[in-house]
């Protein structure tokens, strides 16, 4: 396996522009999906955390369960939505990076919302009296807490990023793995494996892991610097 690793990495390092196109697209798709999922998921999770409504426990259970949505099922579902024969066919979004962002957002949203919900609920216990005393209630209190626990939420966001950059089922189905247009790292790895070029697939795999580690390291440094400033 060391041989395969070495030969694969060599191929990868000497590979042309195409590899960096693929890496760039992977990052663009997954980061876009995480950004969208965060913008939607954080307020959603916070609202459920502080809200009091009938069926709240059921919503929480469902949200937690959706963290485990199988990517290939999400891909299939969105394919049927975006297919010409489907309800959103007019948009012509099938086999585009936008469709991939859409699919990954759906995958990542429950993760961020569920983890945010738990974090905000835990913090609400600490903050509740003081905030209510100051006249801060409901959604405003939830948003204040969201900002205050932002460093803990970073972990939720990174979990979402991990899920997005690792999955292949959804982006394969809605993207079509089109050369130069919708081929990302995971689908490229699947392709090279199916072509029997295992060393190259392995090399690509290590590049993917290295990229994700680099992103996590960057996030960690940002978090540390900010924590020093804000306490």
């Amino acid at each position, binding site marked *: 396996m060391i041989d395969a690793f070495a030969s694969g990495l060599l191929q990868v390092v000497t590979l042309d522009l195409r590899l960096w196109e693929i890496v760039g697209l992977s990052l663009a798709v997954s980061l876009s999906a995480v950004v969208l999922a965060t913008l939607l998921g954080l307020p959603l999770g916070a609202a459920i955390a502080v809200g009091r409504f009938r069926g709240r426990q059921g919503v929480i259970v469902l949200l937690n369960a959706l963290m485990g949505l199988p990517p290939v099922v999400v891909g299939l579902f969105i394919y049927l939505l975006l297919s010409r024969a489907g309800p959103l066919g007019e948009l012509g979004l099938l086999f585009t990076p936008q469709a991939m962002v859409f699919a990954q957002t759906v995958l990542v949203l429950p993760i961020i919302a569920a983890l945010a919900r738990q974090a905000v609920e835990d913090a609400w216990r*600490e903050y509740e*009296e003081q905030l*209510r*005393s*100051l*006249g801060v209630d409901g959604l405003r209190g939830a948003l204040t807490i969201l*900002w*205050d626990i932002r460093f803990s939420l970073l972990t939720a966001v990174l979990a979402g990023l991990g899920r997005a950059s690792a999955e292949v089922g959804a982006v394969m189905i809605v993207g079509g793995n089109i050369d130069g247009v919708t081929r990302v790292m995971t689908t490229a790895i699947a392709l090279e494996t199916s072509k029997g070029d295992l060393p190259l697939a392995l090399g690509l795999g290590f590049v993917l892991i290295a990229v994700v580690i680099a992103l996590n390291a960057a996030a960690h440094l940002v978090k540390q610097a900010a924590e020093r400033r804000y*306490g």
Partner: protein
Amino acid sequence: MNGILPLHLENLSFAAGGRTIIERTNLTLEAGTSTIILGANGAGKSVLMRLMHGLLAPSAGRVVWSGERVRRRQAMVFQRPVMLRRTALANVVYVLKVAGVDAADRSRLAREALAEVGLTQLAERPARVLSGGEQQRLALARAWALHPEVLFLDEPTANLDPGATREIEAVIRAFDASGTKIVMSTHSLGQARRLGDEVIYLHQGRVAERAPIEKFFPVPSTTEAGAFVKGELPWT
């Protein structure tokens, strides 16, 4: 605009977990006097203050203020202050923002409040790294910025050393001097005598005795209060 005092508690009860914590209490709190609430642990001091401040809903009876829009015109300082993860100044600015103060005025008013409690030097420090005493002063600055008519304090110096306690008491006196009614619970008899005009002694959820400071100390009228005073360390 009318003041929100006097505050009337009518047949106020509170029960939780099968236990009655506050029992059919009738009380009127007037402007102008600093009220100290004394009582043993579990007597119901914290619950009573939270009922008055509106953080808890009574099981029976009513809390009746004399004016409108009461929330903004009273403030509360807790035994353990909760600070937002931002600078001291930003914590006060936040409170002003919630209260609807114009953006242009917030910074200035916040700095005035910090100056009042002696925290000007620490304005740009993250609030969470301040000491216990400094955080409590910051909590008072937050309250000051609102210029409340009533300030509730729930054992504000219980976790502080004597030096910090003196600083807090100085601020409380400043509130009193500026016309804010003080309602404070404490374990310290010395503190009660230093800061209060009247004492309400709570015994197992009932008001057992209510008297001006000079009548309550050194010897209260009721036996329950008497036993309490004897049992407490007098000069802290």
